[in-house]
């Protein structure tokens, strides 16, 4: 296929262990992804802690579509489309705020933050027209799992819980690290722009083969023990949860070492208040187990990446442009831990991050390579001979194996050919 054909046959572009490079750089394929993935499946939008009070709103997106995540005047979380239904003006120009109504600056049409039209200027010009026909557009389905807000532009389809499947266990694992079982995203987001296709990020988030090389410079100049987790001797696992959700499971390593907070490169004695709060919340035994296991490293298809200490949201802008939004995870009831979470996040990610700046360099080089036609395929065979199933039936492999990448393409093909 040339990449220019009107309706690409995805089954000839993607095979179980290899993918044609054109899938990363063809603008037409990108348009079809917006339609068949971003505007159909469940997409992560934001977290309820970003709109804690009634009338709070924050500007988010689903694929290329800007969305207002609103804690509306009725107390409900709604996802409204940022477009005045009168003449199509962008309605709200601010990233966040608190307001019960939105007024379009063009002709002063005013909407409640539930999306209902309240009034327009010089109302006599509309006679006795029915205002209910002029509500703001909205994302038809909103699903919330333990504070994580997802939206789907499809009126019907699998429920959010069905979509998340086994990935809910990782979210549950994450929240256990809070003595109150809740996450708070209160530190604001860094926005890192890159000239690369979004799928390079999707695939790299659970790639355990690259860290020793891409991040070797960091491992060399810090005492970080992280490097070993990604080596040939590591007992960590890659996992395919189905539906494109993939995980890098470090728990086998942390359990082998058996030290609470080792996952965070620290120890119990450095965080006495946190340890006490965890023991009070969960009991000594369970708290110890949680603090040994730490937080997950999971890529929830297509755009939510929880990376132990931070949360990324991928936003595709164009076939060759993506924004990585990232913030530090903050656990309710854990101020001691939260400070270190912010500091470590700021050091490692974002445009100047010691880690992510190098990952992002790879994404841009990935993209430059993809436009070269020979060889035509990228290969994803690593660890095929040792791929197996865990006790829950999920495919797993060695920490450096390409189990996640094969899983992502399997799901991608399903969505693109549905």
């Amino acid at each position, binding site marked *: 296929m040339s990449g220019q054909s009107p309706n690409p046959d995805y089954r000839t572009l993607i095979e179980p262990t290899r993918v044609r490079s054109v899938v990363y750089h063809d603008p037409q394929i990108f348009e079809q992804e917006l339609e068949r993935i971003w505007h159909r499946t469940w997409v992560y939008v934001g977290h309820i802690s970003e709109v804690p009070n009634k009338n709070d709103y924050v500007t988010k997106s689903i694929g290329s579509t800007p969305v207002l995540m609103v804690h509306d005047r009725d107390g409900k979380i709604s996802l409204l489309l940022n477009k005045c239904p009168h003449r199509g003006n962008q309605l709200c120009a601010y*990233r966040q705020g608190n307001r019960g109504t939105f007024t379009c600056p063009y002709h002063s049409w005013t909407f409640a933050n539930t999306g209902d039209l309240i009034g327009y200027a010089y109302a006599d010009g509309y006679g006795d027209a029915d205002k209910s026909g002029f509500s703001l557009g909205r994302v038809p389905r909103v699903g919330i799992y333990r504070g994580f807000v997802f939206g789907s532009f499809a009126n019907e389809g699998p429920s959010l819980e069905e979509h998340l499947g086994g990935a809910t266990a990782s979210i549950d694992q994450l929240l256990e690290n809070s003595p109150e079982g809740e996450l708070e995203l*209160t*530190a*604001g*987001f*860094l*926005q*890192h*722009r*890159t*000239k690369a296709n979004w799928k390079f990020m999707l695939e790299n988030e659970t790639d355990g083969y690259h860290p020793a090389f*891409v991040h*070797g*410079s*960091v491992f*060399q*100049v*810090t005492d970080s023990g992280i490097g070993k987790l990604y080596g040939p001797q590591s007992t960590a696992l890659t996992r395919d949860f189905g539906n494109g959700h993939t995980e890098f499971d470090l728990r086998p390593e942390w359990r082998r070492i058996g030290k609470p907070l080792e996952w965070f490169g620290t120890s119990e004695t450095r965080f006495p208040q946190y340890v006490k709060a965890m023991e009070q919340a969960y009991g000594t035994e369970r708290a110890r187990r949680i603090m040994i296991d730490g937080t997950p490293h999971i890529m929830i298809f297509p755009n939510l990446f929880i990376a132990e200490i931070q949360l990324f949201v991928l936003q595709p802008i164009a076939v060759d442009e993506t*924004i990585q939004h*990232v*913030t*530090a995870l903050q656990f309710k009831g854990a101020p001691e831990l939260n*400070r270190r979470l*912010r*500091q470590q*996040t*700021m*050091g490692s990610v*974002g*445009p*100047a991050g*010691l880690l992510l*700046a*190098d990952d*992002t*360099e*790879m994404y*841009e*080089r990935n993209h*430059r390579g993809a436009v070269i036609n020979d060889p035509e395929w990228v290969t994803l065979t690593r660890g095929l001979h040792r791929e197996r199933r865990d006790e829950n039936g999920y495919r797993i492999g060695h920490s450096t194996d390409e189990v996640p990448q094969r899983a992502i393409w399997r799901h991608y093909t399903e969505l693109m050919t549905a």
Partner: protein
Amino acid sequence: MPQSTATAMLHLEAEQTDLLRRVEQFLFLEARLQDTHAYDEWEALWADDATYWVPANGSDTDPERQMSIIYDNRSRIGVRIDQLKTGRRHTQTPRSELARIISNVELVTRVGDEIEVRANAIIFEDNLRGETLWASRNEYRLRITDGGFKLVRKKVGLVNNHKPIFTLSFLI
């Protein structure tokens, strides 16, 4: 020295004019060390109690609570430099080609042996991705020492830091 930015220059005495010249020379030196990737020499400009801050989402955020693009203490400045010197900081391999203009230098206040300075910076970067123009309003706290100045605090307020920005891996 007057606090008011509008009148600052008008009230400069001869002694302060001399100080301004020396401050400018220091900022130009820093700019050259950054442009030429003279990592060790640049690191040596910092005081032991240094803070190197590049805020995100505006310039009046609380770096102790909110995410910043860079919020390094002296130790992390050292790690950042050490990483660049490994030769495997891929985003700087090959290195960015840089030229920057530091201008609009103002002395703001002097307290004891420390002076607050403001300046604007325009930086042209060329790297594998292409050409990028960076603009910032900078604030410095300099400590007067026998040999000149030490950088105690540098805040780089990128004018577009509320928007998505490309990788920023050269020394800004």
